[in-house]
């Protein structure tokens, strides 16, 4: 093994070819990931050009007429670009922070559960919503909350209270969306942290117990610091997508109801509503490019900050 990792023998110059040959096994293991990223991330890059043309099926992306920034006009003209972008970012910030916070808490709680059976059952129950399609989630929420036949309002009216007209009032929806998101994703997110906790050297924990640390101190001084790299890296990854909204979640919960979406509008929803009757690849790509550029800048910025504070944890 050491031969592969450190192939340079004294007196020999390491060339790229030799390095490549010596690492062949590792590279082979990486191959699926490399092929995946080339095929789905790098090869389609030239296609970004479609955002700058008036796309014609027969002429193809590079044969179509170049129109410059015209495709970006419609989002820019809407006068809503700032509101949409900030809504999208704020929602994602809430998702990212709460996701990780709740996931860490849940992972620690799971770790502390002594009965293996109970732990497995609760983990499975939390994981289940992750597999439910967003369309069904939307219907579930509707049957819970709607005015005429919804579960919540049936209970309320049975008890003599006034029904809550949630689909006629946009204000509670940011909260409802975040709650539904957490319900759906926490089980999945906590798995990573749970694995990280399991990976912590048990001897350290045992040593702290012997030194008289209580449960809280164990979490505060051992588990949380050990989780820090995982938290930082997951946060960094998540930030790259902060300008990309979760269209499936928003569309299925809020959909075409303008009373609701004026409170929770995100870029994807607006673009979908404005262009669904237009079927225009070019405008859609223009918006996608705009989101990617902002995401790219954000990742660079955050990585820069992390590099300053904790050089070991930065991505590059």
């Amino acid at each position, binding site marked *: 093994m050491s031969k592969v990792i450190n192939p340079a023998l004294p007196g020999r110059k390491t060339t790229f070819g030799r390095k490549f040959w010596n690492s062949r096994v590792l590279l082979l293991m990486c191959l699926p990931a490399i092929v995946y990223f080339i095929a789905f991330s790098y090869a389609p890059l030239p296609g970004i050009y479609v955002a700058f043309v008036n796309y014609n099926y027969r002429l193809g992306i590079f044969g179509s007429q170049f129109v410059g920034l015209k495709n970006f006009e419609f989002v820019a003209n809407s006068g809503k670009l700032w509101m949409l972008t900030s809504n999208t970012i704020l929602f994602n910030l809430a998702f990212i922070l709460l996701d990780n916070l709740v996931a860490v808490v849940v992972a620690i709680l799971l770790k502390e559960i002594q009965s293996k059976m109970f732990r497995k059952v609760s983990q499975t129950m939390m994981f289940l919503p992750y597999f439910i399609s967003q369309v069904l989630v939307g219907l579930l929420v509707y049957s819970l909350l709607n005015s005429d036949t919804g579960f919540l309002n049936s209970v309320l009216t049975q008890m003599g209270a006034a029904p809550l007209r949630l689909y*006629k009032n946009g204000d509670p929806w940011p909260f409802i969306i975040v709650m539904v998101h957490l319900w759906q994703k926490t089980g999945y997110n906590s798995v990573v942290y749970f694995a990280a906790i399991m990976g912590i050297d048990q001897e350290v924990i045992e040593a702290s117990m012997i030194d008289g640390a209580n449960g809280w101190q164990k979490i505060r001084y051992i588990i949380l610091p050990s989780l820090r790299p995982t938290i930082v890296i997951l946060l960094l990854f998540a930030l790259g997508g902060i300008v990309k909204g979760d269209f499936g979640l928003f569309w299925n919960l809020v959909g075409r109801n303008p009373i609701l979406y004026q409170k929770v509008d995100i870029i994807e929803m607006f673009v979908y509503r*404005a262009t669904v009757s237009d*079927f225009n690849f070019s405008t859609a790509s223009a918006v996608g490019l705009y989101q990617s550029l902002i995401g790219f800048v954000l990742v660079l910025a955050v990585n820069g900050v992390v590099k300053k504070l904790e050089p070991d944890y930065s991505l590059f």
Partner: protein
Amino acid sequence: MKKFLALVLAVAMVLGISAVSFAEEISVANAADVWAKTWADVDTSEHVVINYMTTGDAPTTGANPEMLEMLNKILTEKANAEINIVWISWTDYLANYNLRIASMDGSIDLIGSSTDWLDAWPNAKRGGFLELSEEMLAKYAPVTFATVPAEHWAVCTYEGNIYFIPEDHYSQWTNHGWAYRLDWAKEAGLQDGVHNWDDLTVYVKYVKETYGKDLLAVWDSDGTAYPASGYISSFRKWRSIDGIASGALWGGYLDDPYTINNIFLDETDLLVAYAKLMKEWDEIGVWPTDVLSNTGADNRVEFRQGKVGLEQHHTQTWTGLVSPKADTQNTMYLTDEDADVGFFYWTEPAGYVCRDLVTHGVAAVSAASKNPERTLMVYDLLRNDRDCYDLFNYGIKGRSYDINEEGYRFTPDSFSSDKDGISTNWWWGRNDDLEIPSAAMNWDAINALYDKYEAEAVMYPYEAFVFDNTNVQSYINQVNETYTRYMKLICYGQFEDAEEIVAEFQAALRAAGSDEVTAELQRQIDATYKN
């Protein structure tokens, strides 16, 4: 000398033209001879499959496989081709339809389309449809080419190219309005039925009070129908230009159709009156409380089953609702022997109705088709050949349908839709010359309405107009978004104050660029019509 030559030429031309018109006129009656003559030198040695794309859900039961087998035998014999149906299911049909055309992989040949409810023009302009030259049509679809008049080919032409074949010889009316329960309207004191919005309000109030408890809703709307411009057209003789935006916003008054306006900016008083009426309907409880999120509803099926009292769609749909045997789901007639369905079309109070566009249904050839010639041949057969037409439209004689002594089509007693039904959604090549009227239809009621239509029908004034949206599409996108947002609020009474919401809507339309679109439309309309 020059004058003499000109005279000789003119005489020769006149003679030439009359010589053509003296030749036997091509029609479905002599179609077989025409094909035999015109196709004699066409190379059909290779057997090909023509993939026909239509919107609709693929039938999982019924006699489609057997029908297609019989049909393909005929098509093979006459054009050495067979047809295969590619279905674009109704869920998100427009996006999937456009996507399939855009894929350009040669997997589809014949495309059913429409300039008002499917994106025929956008797809033509984006290069999805093959340009069809007159020579090509005359050679490979000779009967269709000869029977579609020149002025109808002209409306399928853009920048000198014909892009699709119109279904222009099929009688139907697709003007919108309300289908309602005529028996209940009579109970409510409306002996003649509903003929204006006041009648309709009396009706919905009565239905809510009398049947509200037994029904799912008076109108189990999913919040996606916006009758606002329909309301305005009850009071003003106005027609929208189809295919500009997602709603009927731009058009002109019929006495001056080429002065273009945005009806929602011009008719403020009517729009406010409409908003107030819808607020009243909301308070009556015509639709479910959460109508704007009521996405799961299927009001038409519920209407057929007698579970609701109102359906918003066009005349053609109503003909199927008023005829008890036209659909097996029409169970209201079984549970309620008095059941009867009336139709209030929006333009009725103003006393006019616009004829359908000839491009309401059109057939196009995919630009990626490997066999465009054969596609046209198959289309010509399906549209003009008796046997092909009957199989493709009605199914297998004796099983799917039969013909009675009066020449009407009926379903035999042995018929079961699971076993013998067929569906091809052939809405782009029907032909009155070959249509067999159905005995299942309530012709008394239908013809009474059709006669009324014929008496007050006016032509759609913008048939020759194809809009080039390049300069204003970004505004139209904004307007679409604004329109849908406010229509949902206005058409379902989801607001506090009618004047306020209308003013807000109009300001938002202007901010979205409505005036720019109006100006551009006016410019292009002038270029088309003011020469």
